[in-house]
């Protein structure tokens, strides 16, 4: 395996994760090392094995759709980094 810095930069972009140049270099070599260790999974023939996403025998659990009181907007906005006029202030989306 060889993970390049460009690949780390691409994945970081997908994850919307800002990384410094040093971090990208370090992650490229660490990832290389980690993914190498994971190659051992290839030794196993899993062509006939179904994947397990979760271990419990439950699917599409629904609960009653009952209205319940919501929290007041002022309370919710207490955690907002920036609020304005009772709303979350979002940075410009269109450039």
């Amino acid at each position, binding site marked *: 395996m060889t993970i390049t810095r460009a690949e780390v930069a691409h994945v970081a972009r997908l994850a919307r994760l800002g*990384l410094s140049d040093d971090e990208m270099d370090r992650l490229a070599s660490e990832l290389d090392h980690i993914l190498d260790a994971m190659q051992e999974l290839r030794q196993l023939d899993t062509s006939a094995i179904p994947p397990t996403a979760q271990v419990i025998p439950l699917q599409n659990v629904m609960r009653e759709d009952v209205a319940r009181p919501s929290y007041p907007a002022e309370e919710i906005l207490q955690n907002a980094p920036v609020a304005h006029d009772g709303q979350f202030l979002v940075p410009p989306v269109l450039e």
Partner: protein
Amino acid sequence: MSLTELSITELHSRLARREVSALEVARAHLDRIEALDPMTVRAMLTVTRDHAERQARAADARLTAGETAPLLGIPVVLKDVLTTRGIRTTAGSKILERFVPLEDGTITQRLAEAGTIMLGKSNMDEFAMGSSTENSSFFPTRNPWDLDRVPGGSSGGSAAAVGAEFAPFSLGTDTGGSIRQPGALCGVIGFKPTYGRVSRYGLIAFASSLDQIGPFTRTVEDCALVMNAIAGHDPCDSTSLQAPVPDYTAALQKEPSLKGVRLALPREYFDVEGMEPGVEAAVKAAINQLESLGAELGEVSLPHTRYGLATYYLIAPAECSANLARYDGVKYSLSIREPGAGLWDVYERSRGEGFGREVKRRVILGTYALSSGYYDAYYLKAQKVRTLIKQDFDSVFEHYDAVVGPTSPTVAFPIGAKTQDPLAMYLNDLFTIPTSLAGLPGISVPAGLSNGLPVGLQIIGKALDESGVLRIAHAFEQSTHWHTLRSPIAQMDAATARSA
């Protein structure tokens, strides 16, 4: 005997007889934390004295009215990944440094209804990613047996708090070993229930198909009492199981006997590279003890054990990369906004500055494993191997009641010893990860010392057979003295500490 030495059961009988008030119990623990914690283990991120005293007064009113619920008036410490209304909840991360939840999680709420007194929130590896609590954004926690060593992780603060006698019990969360491993390293009991047994509503998610809440205690009986309060279905968590919840204390016998209990010893959990001889010796002695209690032992193979680490370190990061997408610098987390910055800049800067090194590593690894072109080779492959690992356990449980072995290959290691080598750190979870991938209940009980540091015996049960696991753990505990050993910090007196 001071109040802080007592178990839940012992405190309960004094509270119920009104020999002591809940407020006195709470204050004894709060005073001890304030006097000792900052200069020793640093288990706590937030101490909630006012909140605790309010809860204690309410508990005293209930006790005066004649109520005698088992956890009424009992102090607890919560891992800082469980949301608490009006009380900062950080998940050990700078990105949530100022986050104050609007509501209690289901388990926080259940404990409050049971009458427990929350003393505060404990330190942890950032977003529960780590095995040493060194990945906390704030400071590392230290081991109450040796302050130069780690307490394990990710629930290191909760384990250290019980090991230092700051609280008779605490809650942690376990995704790949984060309750059992710190339990072992701090010499206390750590129990991960079956996936789905305890509601995750209000638990800040790391890897949703693996995360599970569970207790740290100093006795197995206390563990059963806490399980009685937290287990059970919750309509707010669609992965919580509908199964009936037994009285877990009913599984504990007065006379320890394991007659007729069949225990499997997996070959892959012994003679492993990197396993300390002292740990192996203590675990083998513990197994002899189980045999002398009447258990039938048999050697088995869990052939896919060695693939557990690789499987886990693809699945957990993949799930974490999705779960952590919500920290976007817009709704409730750290937000870095330069003048003129657009949305993408805010996302990238806020996440880049808010997340620590291990979290970034896992977000990148997980995003990579899920990305187009690599999904089949990594994520899907890992999910298939997860099936094989689960099948290993299924076939062993056709003939055995439980699997026993070491919790961790080593005792507590020095702070800083493994921070530069992620793979060495990941090896801590070798014996706990397969259980997590299979969703099974697992407990770590104190089972001896190696070089003066605690060793844990791990007991793994069938899905939903928490009672069977607790029964075996209890029989072992009652026939050994390991759980009565107290850490050096536990033996420190708060009054002496203050005058020193």
